[in-house]
């Protein structure tokens, strides 16, 4: 080992460089209050590490970003932990950077000759905020999308530069592909190396001027290693334990997929921007720019110029009452604004659980009784074996032909394999509890065509059927309730088959059953009370032979289909 180190030292000088770094002289007054800078560097390293890991399984396009984040969160072992470390690490890093700055501020450590160190530090704070802002968009959920819409609109209010800023952020028309790519590039390509360079310069400047000593500290200097490094390590360990617990315990939000049409969504920035969000509310109309651009701009400029504003010699901490009061007032103002923002913004109703999860967890109970066809108070639906002749109707007889055909398709496609019915464990979710925002035919049809695109992470295979069949299938699925499901699924084969024949032959173009279809020809409800099987068969073969003046064309069915449609029609109940 020693020989390897000696060899390396001889060729590169690495050992003496490390020693030189570690055995730096620091003032005797240095101590616990100066550990925060090291902690900030440590958190940056954690962000780089976990960020790289996330990037290994992340697709940086609006089309797939959400799906891949969902994949990290649900499919990968340790995925939620890695994302948790990155997510909470970002917040903690910002807290630590701000604490570091407050410490330097109240000690007055920015004074001559350390002005440049301070200004590089302020730049690093702004970069940390930029990391937060750009990273916020990357999961591409509703929160990310709407938050970024607001951010880019604020940028557009900047005097003169506004339109150019907007163009630079790629969001002239709307937040979309271009904005997304630019935020991703900033977050992963531009900002990290910039941060590394600036941290390097920052540390170089700290070394050049030495750690700031307390005024009047003339005691012999000490070494940075190991005593101060020990203190730094204690700080790092405590912060890391907090971060790790947060990552394990606190759920990182992933809301629904970004939806530009969701007008009910209330955008909200990350917590550390809430005070700005609230400040904006105080300025109305043309003055809005004051809150969005002027005030933050003045604040940042003041922060930069503090070393030139406060030029006196360093004095003891106890005498820096102005600085301490200033920090306290700023903290109170920040807390007040943030609390006001939290209190006055109504909560969004949705959460990640809102989406249909392909795993066995059931979505939040949706109002199942809003379905069209089957009243939940149907007494016989609890009793699937009820005879059709009973006064209450068999569940399937309450469906219109299209819904019933949908049931046939449902069975034929083997949907039961994954959706075996309420109360039974299947791969797919319980179809009687589809969330309210998905209870629409267009949504269901799109979902059938490409499940994983509509419900990220879904393993359901696409249902490759003609549009009419997908429509019927959707209508059927929407009739399902926990009360009628079992009864519906036991519908006789002739009924579903008959309804499918009825649908494929477009009988509804002229006839009506259960109130759906056209009134061009007689309604078929209760047709069994008027005619018998032989009549029906004859009628299909040659309508005019049994019904004079009929304009219905003859239909030639396969024997099986003829049997099914006749049985189905004859069993149709008379409409009340």
């Amino acid at each position, binding site marked *: 080992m020693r020989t390897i180190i000696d060899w390396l030292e001889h060729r590169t000088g690495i050992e003496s460089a490390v020693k030189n770094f570690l055995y730096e002289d620091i003032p*005797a*007054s*240095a*101590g*616990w*209050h100066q550990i925060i800078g090291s902690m900030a560097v440590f958190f940056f390293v*954690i962000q780089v*590490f*976990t960020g790289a*890991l996330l990037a*290994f*399984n992340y*697709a940086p396009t609006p089309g*797939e970003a959400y*799906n*891949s984040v*969902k*994949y990290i969160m*649900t*499919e*990968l*072992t*340790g*995925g939620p*932990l*890695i994302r948790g*470390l990155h997510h909470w690490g970002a917040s903690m890093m910002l807290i630590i950077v701000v604490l570091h700055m407050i410490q330097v501020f109240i000690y007055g450590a920015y004074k001559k000759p350390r002005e440049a160190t301070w200004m590089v530090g302020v730049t690093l704070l702004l970069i940390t905020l930029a990391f937060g802002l750009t990273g916020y968009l990357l999961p591409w959920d509703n929160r990310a999308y709407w938050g970024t819409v607001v951010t880019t609109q604020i940028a557009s209010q900047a005097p003169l530069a506004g339109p150019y800023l907007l163009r630079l952020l790629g969001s002239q028309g709307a937040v979309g592909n271009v904005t997304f790519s630019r935020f991703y590039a900033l977050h992963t390509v531009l900002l990290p190396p910039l941060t590394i360079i600036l941290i390097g310069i920052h540390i170089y400047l700290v070394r050049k001027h030495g750690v700031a000593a*307390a005024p009047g*500290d*003339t*005691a*012999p*200097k*000490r*070494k940075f290693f*190991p*005593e101060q*490094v*020990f203190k730094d*390590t*204690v700080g*790092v*360990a405590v912060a*890391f334990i907090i971060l*790790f617990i947060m990552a394990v315990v606190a759920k990182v939000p992933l809301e629904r997929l970004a939806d530009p049409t969701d007008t009910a969504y209330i955008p909200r920035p990350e917590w550390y921007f809430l005070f700005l969000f609230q400040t904006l509310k105080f300025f109305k109309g043309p003055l809005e720019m004051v809150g969005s651009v002027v005030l933050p701009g003045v604040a940042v400029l003041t922060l930069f110029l503090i070393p030139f504003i406060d030029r006196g010699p360093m004095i003891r*901490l106890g005498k820096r009452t102005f600085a301490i009061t200033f920090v306290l007032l700023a903290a109170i103002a920040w807390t007040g604004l943030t609390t006001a923002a939290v209190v006055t913004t109504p909560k969004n109703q949705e959460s990640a659980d809102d989406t249909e999860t*392909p*795993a066995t967890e059931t979505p939040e109970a949706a109002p199942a009784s809003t379905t069209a066809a089957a009243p939940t108070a149907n007494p016989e639906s609890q009793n699937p074996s009820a005879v059709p002749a009973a006064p209450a109707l068999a569940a399937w007889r309450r469906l219109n032909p299209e819904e019933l055909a949908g049931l046939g398709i449902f069975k034929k496609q083997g949907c039961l394999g994954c959706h075996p019915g309420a109360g039974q464990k299947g*791969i797919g979710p319980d179809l009687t509890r589809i969330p309210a925002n998905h209870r629409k035919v267009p949504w269901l049809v799109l979902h059938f065509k490409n*499940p*994983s695109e509509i419900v*990220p*992470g*879904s*393993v*359901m*295979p*696409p249902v490759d059927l003609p549009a009419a069949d997908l429509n019927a299938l959707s209508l059927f699925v929407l009739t399902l309730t926990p009360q009628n499901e079992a009864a519906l699924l036991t519908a006789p084969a002739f009924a579903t088959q008959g309804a499918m024949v009825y649908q494929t032959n477009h009988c509804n173009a002229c006839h009506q059953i259960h109130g759906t279809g056209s009134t061009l020809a007689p309604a078929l409800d209760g047709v069994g009370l008027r005619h018998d099987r032989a009549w029906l068969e004859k009628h299909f073969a040659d309508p005019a032979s049994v019904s004079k003046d009929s304009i219905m064309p003859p239909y030639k069915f396969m024997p099986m289909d003829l049997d099914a449609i006749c049985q189905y029609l004859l069993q149709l109940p008379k409409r009340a």
Partner: protein
Amino acid sequence: MDQSNQAQTAAVDVSPTRRAFYIGFINGVMGLVGLALAAPAAIYLLFPPKLRKEAQWVKTSDLSTIPTGTPTEIAFERQRVDGWKVTNEKATAWIVKKPNNDVVAFVPQCTHLGCAYHWDDPSHTFICPCHTSVFSIDGQVLSGPAPRPLDRYLTQVEGGKLKLGPVVESHA
């Protein structure tokens, strides 16, 4: 804070026992922190995703369209879970139909390094162009670096259609 007079008396270096404690603490804690990051990272990268879908059977060509005795390459569509997506992709298989209508479906990749092989009618063998592995019509290795016979799909015939199932790796 730490600017008391007590610091004035501190020596330039700490005592050897303190020093040893500090160094031990630094190494130990940093080692633990490193482990707490490295272990989840390794699990995250190395554990397979929680796949919830079994390989399924796909319908391919009509069996009657496949000639008897001559290996035929057929193309079919299948679904594959690819990371965060289920993709539809084209895949191929080499089908050998025997006179008694038994069917063997070979995975179209050489078992050496995965190159696409082809049927060479004159020599009546499958030949891999990459490293000249040669397989017989029943998939056995005749020569070359291939470590094991050709892999196969499970097959089923339903209504005259050939269905292909999961891949079964052959053994050396």
